[in-house]
Every structure is written in C-alpha cells, then in structure tokens.
C-alpha cells in the first residue's frame, strides 16, 4: 500500500513529476558523465598502454615518449644490453620523424615511425602487408585520403627539408604496402610506418643508430618495477617508464580534468537533490490535510515517512535511469569532440563507460533521493494533527 500511495501521489501531478524527473535525469546524466570522465581517461589510457603487452617504455632522459624530438643514441648497443636481463622478453625500438611525399605538384607532410615490424606495437594492419622490405611503407587512412594513393603505389619519400636551399637532404622511392591504424595516433594526423633502419637512413648520419623510444615486454610473473629499476641504474641516458609511472604522469597532467569532474559532478548531484526536495516539499505542503487525516485514522509516522521518502527515491531512481541513457549519449558525443584534441591519441576515451561508474552515479542519486525526502517527511510526520486539521478546516 505504501508503494501504491507513493506512486499514486506522484501520478496526481503527472506533468510536474515528469518535469522534475527530467530535471533529475539531466543532473544524473551530467553526474554520470563526470564520474565517467574522472575515471575513464585513466582507465582508457591504461588499456591503451597495455594493449600490446609492453609494460616498460624507454625515452630520452627527462622526457615522456614523443614528448620532444630528442632521441636515444646507440640503439643496437642498448638492445644488446637489455637482452642481458632474463626478464626482458621483447624489445621494440621506435624512431619518430617527419616525411614529405610528393603528389603531383604538392608536398604532403606526414609523421613517420621507424619500427621493427616483427615486434612492433604501434599499429594494427587493416589491409595489405607489413613493411617488411627496406623500401616498403604503410600508412593510415588520413594519409591515403590526403595523398590519394593506393596500396601498391610507389611514392617519393623525402626528409630533411632545407628552407634556404629548398631541397631535401634524403629521398627514397618506397612502395605503399598496407593500410594501418596507429594505436597512439591523434585525430586527423597523417601517419606512416617503415623499417627502423629505413627511417634512420632517411634521417641522415646523425640518426644512423637512433631511436625515440623502446617498448619492452617482460616475462609473465616478473617484477616490472624491479626491471625498471635495473635498467634505470644501468642506462642513465634514458628515462624508464612503467605503465604505473606513466599513469601517474597522466594523472598529474589530467588532474585539472578530474577536479573539474568532481566539482561539476557535485553540483549536478546537489541540483538533483534540490529538485527532488523542492518537489516533495511542495507535494507534502499540498497534502498536509490528507496527511493529518492519515495520522488521525491511525497511520503511523513511520508509514508517512516511508511514503514520502519513497516518492523522493522514485523520482531520483527513475530520473537516474533516464539520465543513464542521456549520459551515455552525451558522453559519446563529447568523446567525439575531445578525441579530436590535437596531440592526444584518438583511441583514448575521455568518457569511458564502466558499470562501476553507472552504479556510483545511480547510488549517489538514490542516496540524494533519500536525503531529499528527509526534510519533507520529517515535517509531515511531526505535524500536530489536531492543529493541522483545525487550520485546514478554517482554510
């Protein structure tokens, strides 16, 4: 009967209840988005880093991977040295650079990665073949669109453009062998990959034996942090970043986002709470005579409190359920916008849906619904019955 009474009192002013529920849904959607954002970026970045199973990354000392143009010298020496550690199972060197491709009378500039195709962890092949030969190159969709090239085409790839002499320092005829998706690529970024040695060659004598980054996989069960420390002590010219330390760096850099998420999430929760409190209080005020009569005919205070709290919880839960769908839709839309942010990997989800986020948002709203019912239910339950009935009769 309690549920029936609570439900029927909400239905009595259906439009008002609907509007309040929509208000809660908007607040819930915002809350969910904020909860998704506060945890999503970190989790998304973590899965991205671990997607190919590399737990350690070596970058030039004091930098993050591809944070600067700095490189690590003596790639072959470092690889030979790292192989001495029995916990290291895979070493994937990567050199980053810029290439220019002539298409008709246009010069198209693209990012390029030199990789060891046998162990690379930077791209996934969508069609065609890996660049196994020294003159092979693969590219992403943005590159194909910008150049109008097709798999099998031969391209003139150049590096080291000198603005004064208007010539390139190196050029090479290369065959486009595959279409790939770069895991860490930013939106709309033209990107290619080729053999590490080829890009080192194109970079000239100064890049002959350089790498921008080494990605390292350690054997299952090995202590990643111990391996990290082992390398760091022995190779002072590099920074060794484990997934955990990278996440800590990301956390540090994204702390503004999280603070923003917490503040906006709290505001949403508070707005939802105020909406429900207002609606339930107005509803109680309108029914004050009815409530006094319920009490007079023997309905307990606990029953009155439960009924009113149920009303608040019902609005909150229904609003939260609608907000869940709305939040997912807006999160997806906003994710599309933020993923296009220059310099950030497109694969990162800013609004990553996790069931825990949804339960957190729903739980917080249900709690706020209970809290919202506290004041009006207390007011209703503590009505002096005789005085209220007399005032109602006079009114």
């Amino acid at each position, binding site marked *: 009967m309690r549920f029936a009474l609570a439900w*029927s009192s909400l239905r009595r002013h259906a439009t008002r209840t609907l509007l309040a529920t929509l208000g809660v849904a908007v607040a819930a959607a915002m809350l969910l988005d904020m909860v998704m954002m506060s945890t999503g970026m970190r989790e998304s970045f973590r899965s991205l880093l671990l997607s190919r199973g590399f737990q350690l990354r070596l970058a030039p000392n004091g930098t993050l991977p591809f944070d600067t143009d700095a490189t690590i010298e003596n790639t072959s020496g470092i690889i030979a040295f790292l192989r001495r550690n029995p916990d290291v199972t895979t070493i994937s060197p990567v050199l980053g650079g810029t290439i220019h491709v002539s298409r008709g009378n246009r010069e198209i500039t693209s990012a390029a990665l030199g990789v060891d195709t046998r162990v690379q962890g930077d791209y996934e092949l969508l069609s065609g073949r890996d660049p196994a030969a020294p003159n092979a190159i693969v590219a992403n969709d943005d590159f194909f669109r910008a150049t109008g090239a097709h798999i099998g085409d031969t391209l003139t790839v150049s590096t080291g453009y000198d603005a004064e002499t208007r010539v390139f320092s190196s050029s090479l005829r290369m065959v486009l062998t595959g279409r790939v998706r770069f895991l860490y690529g930013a939106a709309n970024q033209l990107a290619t990959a080729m053999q590490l040695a080829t890009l080192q060659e194109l970079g000239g004598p100064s890049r002959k034996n350089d790498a921008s980054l080494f990605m390292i996989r350690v054997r299952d069960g090995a202590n990643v942090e111990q391996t990290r420390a082992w390398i760091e002590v022995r190779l002072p010219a590099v920074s060794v970043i484990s997934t955990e330390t990278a996440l800590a760096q990301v956390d540090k850099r994204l702390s503004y986002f999280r603070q923003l998420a917490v503040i906006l999430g709290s505001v949403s929760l508070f707005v939802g709470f105020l909406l429900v409190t207002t609606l339930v209080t107005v509803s109680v005020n309108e029914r004050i005579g009815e409530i006094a009569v*319920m009490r*007079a*005919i*023997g309905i307990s205070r606990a*029953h009155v409190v439960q009924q009113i709290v149920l009303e608040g919880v019902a609005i909150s839960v229904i609003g939260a359920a609608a907000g869940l769908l709305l939040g997912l839709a807006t999160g997806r839309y906003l994710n599309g916008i933020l993923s296009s942010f220059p310099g950030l990997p497109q694969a990162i989800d800013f609004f990553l849906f996790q069931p825990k986020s949804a339960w957190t948002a729903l739980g917080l709203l249900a709690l706020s619904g209970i809290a919202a019912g506290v004041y009006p239910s207390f007011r209703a339950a503590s009505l002096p019955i005789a005085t209220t009935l*007399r005032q109602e009769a006079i009114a």
Partner: protein
Amino acid sequence: MTGVERVTGSSTGRAADTARGAMPVVQARDLTRDYSFGKERVHALRGVTFDIADGDYAAIVGPSGCGKSTLLNLLGAIDHPTSGSVIIRGTDVAHMQDREATSFRLRNIGFVFQRFYLMPTLSARENVELPMAEAGVAKAARTARARELLEYVALGHRERHRPSELSGGEQQRVAIARALANRPAILLADEPTGELDARTGAEIIALFGRLNRDGTTLIVVTHDEELAGTAKRKIHMRDGVIVDG
C-alpha cells in the same frame, strides 16, 4: 454476531465490555485544554466530565468556539489535554506517547471529518482498505471487508471509483466505511454534514441512525440541528464547559 454487527461492531471491545459489565465506553474526567497565543492563554476546555455508554449516540452541540472540536480531538487521542483524563474501554488515552496513541486510534477509534479527506488517488475500496492495511490485515480479508462495508453504506457498485468521481454524500459514506474498517469502539464525527446539501446531509443522518441501531457508539460534533435531533443524547457546551447533557 449478526451480519450487520459483523460490519459495524467492535467484536473485541464488546467481549471485553461484557466481561467488565456496565463500564462506560468513554469516560472523560475534569478535562481542560489551554492554548497559548503569545502571552495570551486561551482556555478552550475548563473541566469537562461525562461518560458515554456502549451503544450510545451523543451529539455535542454549542456555538462556534465553545470547545466542541477540542473535546472531540481529546476523545480521539489526537490531542493531549492540559489536565484530566480520557478513558476509552478502560485505557487512559490522554497522555499516551505518539506511537501508542496512533496504534490505539487505528484499532479503537473511527474518525469522520467534515471535508471527507479521502485519498484522491485511491479508489473507494482502497480508501476503506487503508486502515486495515496499516493494521496488518491480509489483502484478501481486507478487500472482502471493504466490499462488505461499501455494501453497508450502499456504495458496493462504486468501489472502483475515485473520490473525484463520487458526489459529496458518496464521499462521506466512503469516509464512514473507512472509519468502520477496523471495528472501532467508537465513531467520532466532526461536522459530518457540514459540507453537504440538505438532501445528502439527510442521507448521512439516516446512515448514522442505522449505524447506531446496529450497535455503533457514536459521538458527533455538529451545528446541524437535524443531525443533533436524531442523537439519543445532546451535550450542550458553552465557553469550554458542558452546560447541559
């Protein structure tokens, strides 16, 4: 127990009353009730004493502000007297804590109000079931009793209707059925015909007469001379005291 008694009577109260002999169902002793309005103190009741016997039908009459409704509130355990006692079937209800008083009202007192105060979103039958649901009566049993009571007040055919679909007189009859739901010891009515026209008022007056004949103890506060005229006993009040009856 006859069929009609089963509808209107308080079976537990009646059994207890038989055991106690001729004990009055209501005993009010030296009741006073003062209200404070700022520094001013108003004496709404100034020492009221009377008994109501089982099966009695009393009308409390008097000018506005004489303390009729205040007295009814004290008899119904929805207000506390400043001093004095109200004993209903041997239980002093005057100084009960809220939880105890609520439970007592649920099982022993039926209320009928001037403005009906039915739950607008519930049907007539659900309104009658409400006090029984609170008392923990099983769904099937309370539905059956609600139907029986609605039949008694001649609204069996309107059980699914909501209050907004009923006339004033019909709503008041549903309110009476609701008041009888848990077989109370007494039925208290505050101006039950105050919002009704003469014809529907007469229907309610007739229903009260029938209820009393079938064994219900009734105490009615009214300005309605016709209603007061049907009562077995009139209690006249003026300035917070009983002047006659």
